[in-house]
């Protein structure tokens, strides 16, 4: 460790020993107390934010506010150790496909190679972007450094593939509209009517339909009939119908969130995961 002596290693070792001792203690606790231990730590996890909110903060801060970056950092650091769960799960699946030569094993190779390449060149791009990774071969190609490789994988691959996937939605929105907008029931009809009004109101040929209604009268005053311009009807729909409906939904959603949070925090939740004997 640069800048730290042997004493620092001692501290690190001490930290590890203490933490493992605590975990060993928990592991040694009687089986039936495990549920209580979990409930306790769950409660503790939520307590910080709850207390920070409810404790009076006359100047906008209380004694807990300053620890927010620490708590967030701790959560992020510990949480990011879990990335292994994901990586193992995926890599294992593809290694298994590969070792048993199941159909499509070639694609597993492609996935694993892209994964390793991105990880390696991504990290090299952080630490030694100018390191040569592909040497020049006279007449065939120029040498390539780590940054170049990363740019190839990121700008050429990842970001274009992301945009392409996003743009697929354009096709799907068309086929979904064609299929779903049928005058089948009152509900389907309402869905269709609103969608068509808003669509027509938002493109030129639509606004052209009612462009004859001038916003101003000849005397310069406001024309009341201008409210019937298609884009104004669309806007009215979005503001006066959509907004209150959204608000009604929001009420239920937020209360649902509050109630569910309370059940998790106080370990009142039920269901397979929560009912299991440990």
């Amino acid at each position, binding site marked *: 460790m640069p800048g730290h002596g042997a004493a620092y290693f001692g501290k690190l070792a001490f930290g590890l020993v203490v933490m493992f001792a605590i975990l060993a203690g928990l592991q040694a606790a009687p089986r039936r107390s495990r549920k209580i231990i979990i409930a306790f730590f769950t409660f503790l996890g939520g307590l910080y934010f709850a207390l920070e909110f409810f404790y009076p903060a006359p100047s906008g801060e209380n004694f807990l506010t300053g620890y927010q970056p620490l708590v967030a950092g701790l959560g992020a650091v510990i949480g990011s150790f879990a990335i292994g769960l994901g990586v193992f799960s995926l890599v294992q699946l593809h290694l298994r496909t590969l070792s048993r030569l199941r159909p499509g094993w070639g694609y597993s190779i492609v996935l694993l190679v892209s994964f390793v390449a991105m990880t390696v060149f991504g990290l090299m791009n952080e630490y030694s972007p100018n390191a040569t990774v592909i040497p020049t071969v006279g007449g065939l190609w120029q040498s390539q450094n780590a940054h170049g490789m990363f740019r190839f994988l990121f700008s050429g691959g990842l970001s274009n593939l992301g945009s392409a996937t996003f743009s697929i939605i354009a096709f799907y929105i*068309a086929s979904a509209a064609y299929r779903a907008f049928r005058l089948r029931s009152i509900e389907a009809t309402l869905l269709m009517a609103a969608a068509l009004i808003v669509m027509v109101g*938002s493109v030129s040929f639509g606004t*052209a339909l009612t462009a004859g209604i001038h916003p101003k009268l000849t005397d310069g005053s406001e024309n009341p009939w201008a409210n019937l311009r298609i884009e104004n009807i669309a806007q009215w729909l979005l*503001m006066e119908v959509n907004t209150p409906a959204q608000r009604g939904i929001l009420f239920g959603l937020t209360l649902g969130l509050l109630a569910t949070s309370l059940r998790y925090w106080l370990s009142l939740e039920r269901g397979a995961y929560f009912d299991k004997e440990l």
Partner: protein
Amino acid sequence: MNSTLWNRLQTIDRRIIYAVLLLFIIIPLFIDIPLPTYPSKQSQDFYDTLEKVAADKGNANKIVIVNGMWSPSTRGENQWQAEALITHLMQKHLHFATLTFDTQNDTVMQTSVVEPLAKKYGYVYGRDYVNWGYRPNAVYVITIKGLVTNIPGTIKKDAHGTPITSFAVMKNVKTRSDVAAVVDITPVESTETWLGLFEQNNSPPYLFAPTAVMAPTYYPYLDSGQIQGMLTGIKGAGDYEGLLHTKSFGSRIASALSLVYALIILLVIIGNVGHFATRAAKRREAS
């Protein structure tokens, strides 16, 4: 016509729909389809506001702040809005400063929009415009707050590391009162911060160019006059080009959009005709 033909109308193969959609999008890229543009009220307001700003002689030494929150992922809408806006600023000889809080915005904004247009309109860096560059999103709020009272102290250096006080365009720009207008080109929620921390009694004017999907959320602000003009996605960019009489790519894309919308509406009508005809035919068979 028999019922199978009607039935076909309501079960068009999706691949046919997709192929036609693709054609309707690609063709306008090559051919300029002269569809008339009818600017929406918000686009017209956007244009009129900047015209008014430009007409005011007191704004000659002031600056327009162009805040860009967009990245290549939404360039399909935001780049054309930016292009039309910068064109307008340059046509009217307004000074401006670009500022961004998105890591990828600076490159695309400068190389694809500002630099080519500066060449076209003879805009000189430092004299007519300046690039304040990128600031991390974490300091977004503090930066906007800082601009109110102390612009040079908040921005300090431009995108290339040169102190901004050394630029002629920044000579008289010290506080909010030296800002002629704020234009926000964005695919994310950035408005509240500007309205809450920077604006005072709707001054300087705040103009807004969001992606179309965001626009409906902001109608209340338009109603209350806190946002003086809005360009809704690519339709807004097309409107703006129409108002500037510089039909370029935004208008072409707006035409493509019109075609695509017409296609979808047509599909919905065809589907319904098929639906009803089939149902009627079935009823006839049953009776």
